[in-house]
């Protein structure tokens, strides 16, 4: 029974995820491909090469990476103390705090974007990198906090207490004990933040006002252009970094997750 469920889901998800990616590949390198031919009838690398040489593409790539990295760093910086408090302590108003953190994930991003846009226009942050990064924090922070507070709810402060009575200072404990214990969780949280920021289209468009050209912006304008080959080529470039990061970290996470979990 259970095996069947898994198999059905694999097929369902492979179909819905992997198939389109294969299509990207096929389209990106195809010159001619008409229905009902199962594969392109003529191949080319022109489009991909041209795209990679376009300065708009490379600058978009770097801006996207820069924003996503800054956003995930800031998310961790703000999210860590909040998650620790939420995960470890019980205090009055804890439920309210949760609801407040919960809100940005369930209030539709479009509404958030519209609101922020009006607000940032007044504050003069529209069209600035600063504004875009701040806006990206709205959807990323809740995920960072959720992920980390999950880690902290299974976290045992007594490890820190041991280090303390063994003579460590609070600062030393933070770096030699706390960070090492929650490291896999930190990586997951950073990954989440990176990916959410990476794929932001709406907030970047609304707050950036077309001046901050990230990859998703370029991709969208390519979609309006309507050339399936360049859409597919850009899509590939857009999908590659997340897939590489996930693939690279998956093994680490599974391994280290297990080592740490054994101790709990």
């Amino acid at each position, binding site marked *: 029974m259970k095996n069947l469920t898994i198999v059905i889901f694999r097929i369902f998800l492979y179909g819905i995820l992997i198939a389109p990616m294969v299509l990207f590949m096929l389209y990106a390198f195809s010159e001619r491909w008409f229905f009902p031919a199962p594969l392109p009838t003529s191949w080319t690398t022109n489009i991909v090469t041209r795209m990679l040489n376009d300065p708009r593409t490379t600058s978009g790539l770097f801006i996207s990476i820069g924003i996503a990295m800054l956003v995930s760093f800031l998310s961790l910086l703000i999210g860590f103390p909040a998650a620790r408090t939420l995960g470890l302590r019980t205090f009055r108003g804890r439920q309210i705090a949760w609801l407040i953190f919960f809100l940005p994930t369930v209030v539709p991003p479009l509404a958030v974007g519209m609101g922020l846009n009006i607000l940032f226009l007044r504050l003069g942050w529209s069209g600035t990198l600063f504004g875009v990064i701040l806006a990206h924090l709205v959807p990323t922070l809740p995920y960072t906090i959720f992920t980390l507070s999950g880690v902290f709810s299974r976290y045992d402060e*007594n490890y820190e*207490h*041991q280090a*303390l*009575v*063994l*003579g460590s200072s609070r600062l030393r404990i933070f770096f030699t004990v706390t960070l090492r214990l929650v490291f896999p969780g930190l990586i997951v949280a950073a990954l989440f933040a990176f990916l959410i920021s990476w794929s932001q289209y709406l907030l970047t468009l609304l707050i950036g006002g077309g001046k901050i050209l990230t990859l998703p912006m370029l991709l969208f304008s390519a979609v309006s252009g309507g050339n399936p080959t360049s859409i597919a080529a850009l899509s590939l470039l857009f999908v590659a970094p997340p897939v590489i990061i996930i693939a690279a970290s998956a093994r680490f996470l599974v391994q280290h997750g297990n*080592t*740490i979990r054994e*101790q709990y």
Partner: protein
Amino acid sequence: MTKIELVELKKTYPGSHQPVLNHLSLEIHSGELVALLGPSGSGKSTILKLITGLESPDEGQILFDGKSILPVAPNKRGAILMFQKAYLFPFLNVEENIGFGLKVQGANPETIRAEVKKMLNLIGLPGVKKRKPSQLSGGEQQRIALARALILQPKSMLLDEPLSSLDTEVRVNLQEAIRRIQQELGITTILVTHDLNEAMGMSDRTALLINGQVAAIDQPMKLFTKPPTQSSARFVGVSTFFKGNLANGVLTTDFGKLSVNTNGHHAESALFAIRPEHIRVQTEPEINTLQGVVTDCMYRGEYIEYQVEIQSLTVRARVPMPAPVIPHGENIYVYFPPEKLFEVSQQ
């Protein structure tokens, strides 16, 4: 060799009305092992947390050799806490775990290596230094945690039920090991436990904590055979109490007269107690017997436990094997040896 004094400690946790420690005072001599025994919520663990500095008392003082340690930071007190779980750092191997404290102090690697080796021999696990904590059994982990504490030559060790999650055989072995090492190094130690046997076997003195205060403190043997109050008597397994008027060595209870050995000259009401293993059951009446009905009789291996109802009083007697199995409902005489009845105060 440090003497620890707890002076009038008071502690109430936020959100609670009842203080968990209520003007508790206790003195632990230098090199002594004192066991703290008490029901859950009696503040046993709180005392250890106050001494290490993980919590602060609302009132009162904690003195090491006469000097207050309350202004000293937790990491400078030299009081090391051990828990039920070993809390070995999972990302360090055994050697690094044991050397953790020395590394913090900035000792050089050579010294650390030598000291770790000494410690591993002391705790009887010489061959494990490269292992990860997850590769060790629960008992081995606790030994390593012990070594990690001892390597710092602490002024005091505070053990918070360190053996309660271990199997019987491992537990007994570790009880012996901890006791041996503690005496060898003369470290002033406080052991929190809920296991009467463990407290009796390991401690120089055992303190009973009830309602945030020390209800009784004495050598285990004295505390076990002559607990001073009714509540402390219950805690060391006494369940039979007689209330009555005492005159000329005879206690007149609601159930009959009982001779007792006493030097006091009460005319007023007195409370006497007796341990279950000192009560005997027999078929014939005699002096100091009371008639009752057997309501239960359970074979427990080394002894048989009889439950006898003497009118409204339920008495549990433990008679070592060989002893007869008595059917339910049988009439029986319960003998209370006068020299085994002892007076307790009604608290």
